[in-house]
C-alpha cells in the first residue's frame, strides 16, 4: 500500500520548468529518500505535498484519496531552512505552532511537556528562542514538527547543523517514528545516511525522476563486477580472459589484495572457481556501489 503517490506532477515557474511529470510512490511505514542535486526540484515537490503551492497538472494521492486541505494536519514538515520566531518564548511558540496544526490547548501542552522531557529541554520553556544555540533551536523545531503525531513526516536535510551526538539522537528518533508505523519522506545530500535510514528512494535530476526503487536493489543493479580478492602468497595467477586487474596491493610476503573486474558473462561462482583453480583464496567479496557512487553516476549520466 502506498501512503502517498504523485502522478505526472508538473510545475512551471516563469521560464523554468521545476517539475516535469514527476511520479513517486511512497510506501506506508517506510522511509522514503528524496534525492537529487541542488535545484533539481525536490523542494518544489515537497511544497506541493504540503499544499504550499499547487501543481500545474498531475495528481497527488494521500492515503488513498486526492490530497485535500485537511490532510495538512496529518503532515509534519521540517523545512531545510529552519526558522522560528526569535523573540517568542520557546514554550509559548511551540504551543502556538501545535495549535495551528489542529491540537487543542490542553493536548498540545501535555504532548509538548512529554517531548520536552524526553529531550531534557524542559528548562528552556520560558527562554526566548534567540537565547538558544542553533542546535538547541533545531531540537525545538523538531519537536514542533512531530507534535501533532502526523502520519506523514517530511524531513528536508534534517541533520544539517547538528553535532554528531545530536545527529545520532535525531536519527534514532526518525527510526523510532518509522517503527511506530509513520511514513517518512527524507530529503538529503548525505548519501551515507540514505544507506542507513532509507528503504526506498527517488532521485530527481533536472526536474525529472531519473531513478527510483528499493535502496538495496538499486545498489545491486549498479554493480560494476568489481571484486576484492585476497590471495595467499605474492604471486597471484590471474587469467586475463576472465578478468582485469584494477589494483594490486601487496600487503606482506604472505598475501596480496587485488581489485578485479570480472567479465560480464560469468556468474560469480564461475569466476570464483576460476580463481580457486590457481590460487589460495583468503577472502572474496563483491563491491556493492555506495549510494554516493550511484548518485554521482546517475546524475552525471542523465
Amino acid at each position, binding site marked *: 500500500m502506498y501512503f502517498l503517490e504523485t502522478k505526472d506532477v508538473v510545475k512551471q515557474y516563469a521560464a523554468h520548468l521545476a517539475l516535469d511529470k514527476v511520479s513517486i510512490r511512497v510506501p506506508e511505514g517506510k522511509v522514503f529518500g528524496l534525492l537529487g542535486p541542488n535545484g533539481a526540484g525536490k523542494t518544489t515537490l515537497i511544497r506541493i505535498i504540503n499544499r504550499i*503551492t*499547487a501543481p500545474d497538472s498531475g495528481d497527488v494521492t494521500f492515503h488513498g484519496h486526492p490530497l485535500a486541505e485537511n490532510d495538512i494536519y496529518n503532515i509534519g*514538515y521540517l*523545512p531545510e531552512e529552519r*526558522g*522560528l520566531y526569535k523573540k517568542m518564548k520557546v514554550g509559548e511558540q511551540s504551543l502556538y505552532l501545535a495549535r495551528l496544526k489542529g491540537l487543542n490547548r490542553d493536548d498540545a501542552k501535555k504532548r509538548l511537556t512529554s517531548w520536552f522531557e524526553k529531550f531534557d529541554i524542559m528548562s528552556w520553556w520560558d527562554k526566548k528562542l534567540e537565547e538558544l544555540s542553533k542546535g538547541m533551536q533545531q531540537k525545538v523545531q523538531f519537536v514542533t514538527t512531530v507534535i501533532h503525531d502526523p502520519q506523514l513526516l517530511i524531513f528536508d536535510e534534517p541533520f544539517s547543523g547538528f553535532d554528531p551526538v545530536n545527529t545520532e539522537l535525531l536519527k534514532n528518533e526518525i527510526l523510532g517514528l518509522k517503527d511506530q508505523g509513520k511514513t517518512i519522506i527524507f530529503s538529503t545530500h548525505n548519501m551515507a545516511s540514505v544507506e542507513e535510514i532509507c528503504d526506498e528512494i527517488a532521485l530527481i535530476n533536472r526536474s525529472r525522476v531519473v531513478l527510483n526503487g528499493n535502496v538495496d536493489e538499486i545498489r545491486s543493479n549498479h554493480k560494476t563486477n568489481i571484486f576484492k580478492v585476497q590471495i595467499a602468497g605474492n604471486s597471484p595467477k590471474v587469467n586475463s580472459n576472465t578478468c582485469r586487474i584494477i589494483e594490486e596491493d601487496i600487503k606482506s610476503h604472505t598475501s596480496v589484495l587485488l581489485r578485479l573486474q570480472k567479465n560480464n558473462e560469468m556468474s560469480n561462482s564461475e569466476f570464483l572457481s576460476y580463481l580457486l583453480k590457481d590460487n589460495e583464496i583468503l577472502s572474496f567479496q563483491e563491491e556493492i556501489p555506495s549510494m554516493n557512487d550511484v548518485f554521482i553516476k546517475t546524475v552525471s549520466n542523465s
Partner: protein
Amino acid sequence: MTFLIPVLFIGLVIGTFLLSSIKDGETKVIVVADETNQYFDVLKSTDQYQFIKAQGGFEDFRKNSDETVYATLVISEDLLKNPSAIALYSEKQVTNDLERTISNQLNEFLSNKKIASYEIPELKKIMEESKVSIHLQTKRLSSDGKETESSAAIASIVGMVFTIVIYMFIFIYGAMVMQGVLEEKTNRILEVMVSSVKPFDLMMGKIIGIGLVGLTQFFLWMILIIGFNILGGALLMSSTPGITATAEMTGNPGVMQQTLQILSTINITEIIIGFIIYFIGGFMIYASLFAAIGAMVNSPEDTQQYMTPITFLILFALYAGIYSVENPDGPLAFWASMIPLTSPIVMMTRIPFDVPLWEKLVSIVLLFGTMLLLVKLSAKIYRVGILMYGKKPDLKEIIKWLKYQ
C-alpha cells in the same frame, strides 16, 4: 535616484502648496446686514466673495436660509465704539480666508476713519493709538436657527491634529506590517507557517492584528485626552472667580472658557467615527501594500526602492491635508479627499469644517472598494513572494505573479 529624491521632495511640498491655493471656482455670496448703514460700501467684492446688501432684517435670513448664500455678516453697532458688534453666520464652518478678507478691509477702513476723526497734527502718535482691531465672531447657524459660537482657527487645529495623527498611525503601523512580514521571511518561519495556514489568512492575520494594536493605542490616547479635559474643566470651575476677574480686567471673556466652549461645538463624535472608518480603510490599503513589499524583498535594505513611491504618496496626502486647512472646500481638498490613497488623511482635515454627506459617502465607498482590490492584489504578490528568495523581482515579474492562479 539619490539626486532626484531631494528635487521630488521639494516639488512635492511646493507643488501641493500651489495646488491648495487654487480657489474653488464659484463665488461665495455673503449677505451683509449692516444696521449702522456705514460699512457695506467698505466691503469690496473679490473674485471669491461677493458682498450683497441684506433686504430686510437679519431675522428673515435666519429663518429662510437660502442655499446660495454662503454666510451672513451682521453689524449691529458702530464698530468704533464696540469692535465686537460684528458677527459672521454660516451653516458651514467659514474659511480662515473669508475671516481675514472681512477683517482686513474693515480694520483698514476703521483705522483711517479714526485717524481722520482726530484732526490733530501729532499724526504719528495718533497712528499708534488708532490701531483698532475688530473682533469678528463667527457663529454656526443650524437649520433650526440656533446659533453657536465657532472658530475657524479651532476647526483648523482639530483638523490638523487628526490629520497628523492618522498619517502617523497609517505610516507607523503599515511599516510595522512590512517589518513583520520581512522578519518572518528572513527567519524562514514562513515555510513552516504556510504548511499550516493559508498565505492569505497569514497575511490578513498580521494586518488585522497590527491594525487592532493601532486602534487600541488610539483609544488609549482618546481616553487620556478626554480625561485631561474633564480634569481641566474641573480645575477651571474651581478657579472661576479668578478667571472672571481677569476677564473683567481685560474686557474680554475668559479665553480658556471660550476655547473650551468653542471646542465643544466641534462634533467630536463625528471626528472620532470618521477617524476609525478612515483609519481602517487607509491602514488596510497601505498595510497590504507594505505586506506585499515585505514579501517581495529579502532584506530591509531592499525595501527602499519599493517604499519610495508609497512614501511620496502618503507624504503628498499629508501635505495636501495640511494645506487644505486654509481652503477646505478647494479643489485640492475635494479631490484629495475622494482619491482613496489620499482620502483617509485629507478627509480628517475637512471633517471639522463640515463636509456634505454625499462627499463623505462617495469617499468612503471609493476607499473601501479600492481597499478590497488592493488587498486582493497584494495577497497574490504576497503568496508568491514569501517563498521566493534570491534576486528582487522587477515589474515584469510582479505582473507575472499577479497572473498566477
